[in-house]
């Protein structure tokens, strides 16, 4: 502090925005119902809050070392945060820890065997299967001629 008034005002504004993002992430962690929804809430301060705060530090003491370290921090955070979010979301999908009745569309449903994976569909984990109707009506997977080795193929030969 104890600079000109506009420097203090800009510092307080940037720090306040970062604090609002952190508080939103915390409240989202408490309020949301799902691993994927909590992931959606949690990735906001990891990139944008850190960018705001590091921009604030760079603006406060604009030297070469500060600018280099600040850009390194932003680079590594923007490089590693999407990777960890992607890994956590993929593990949540494959172990069925999400609510499939609140998804509008699930493009990986029934397609794990096309990727060479032996993970079953997430509906097999969920008891009380109440899946919303998909937006685009597509052919049922068990009648898909592209996949001859699907596990429901013996019912398909009768047709």
């Amino acid at each position, binding site marked *: 502090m104890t600079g000109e008034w506009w420097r203090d005002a800009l510092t307080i504004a940037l720090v306040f925005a970062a604090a609002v993002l952190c508080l939103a992430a915390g409240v989202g962690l*408490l309020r949301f119902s799902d691993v994927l929804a909590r992931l959606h809430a949690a990735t906001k301060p*990891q990139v944008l809050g850190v960018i705001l705060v590091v921009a604030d530090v760079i603006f406060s003491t604009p030297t070469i070392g500060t600018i280099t*370290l600040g850009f390194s921090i932003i680079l590594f955070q923007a490089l590693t945060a999407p990777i960890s979010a992607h890994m956590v979301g993929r*593990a949540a999908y494959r172990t069925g820890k999400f609510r499939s009745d609140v998804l509008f569309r699930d493009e990986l449903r029934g397609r794990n065997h096309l990727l060479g994976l032996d993970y079953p569909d997430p509906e097999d984990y969920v008891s009380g299967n109440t899946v919303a109707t998909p937006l685009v009506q597509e052919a049922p997977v068990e009648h898909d001629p592209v996949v001859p080795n699907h596990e429901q193929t013996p019912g398909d030969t009768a047709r």
Partner: protein
Amino acid sequence: MTIILGIIIAMFGVSALCAVYRIVRGPSLLDRVIASDVLVATAMCAMGAEMAINRHTNTLPVMLVLAMFAIVGSVSVARFMSNQAEA
């Protein structure tokens, strides 16, 4: 100015407490991983805010190390929990 600083400190503290609550009470392991990521991000933002307010750059390397190595825990847990039972 002091009132705004108090509000900012309270917001960081409430965010960290929410993350700790989700780490303790998370129903699955992935909830705890996400909450620990939020806790690390909140700590980084709080350290940067303290640096920006007090006009020094002492803890900037700590922020760099946290930004580089916060990925290790979450990626390793998410990588090796797919072939495990409920946790």
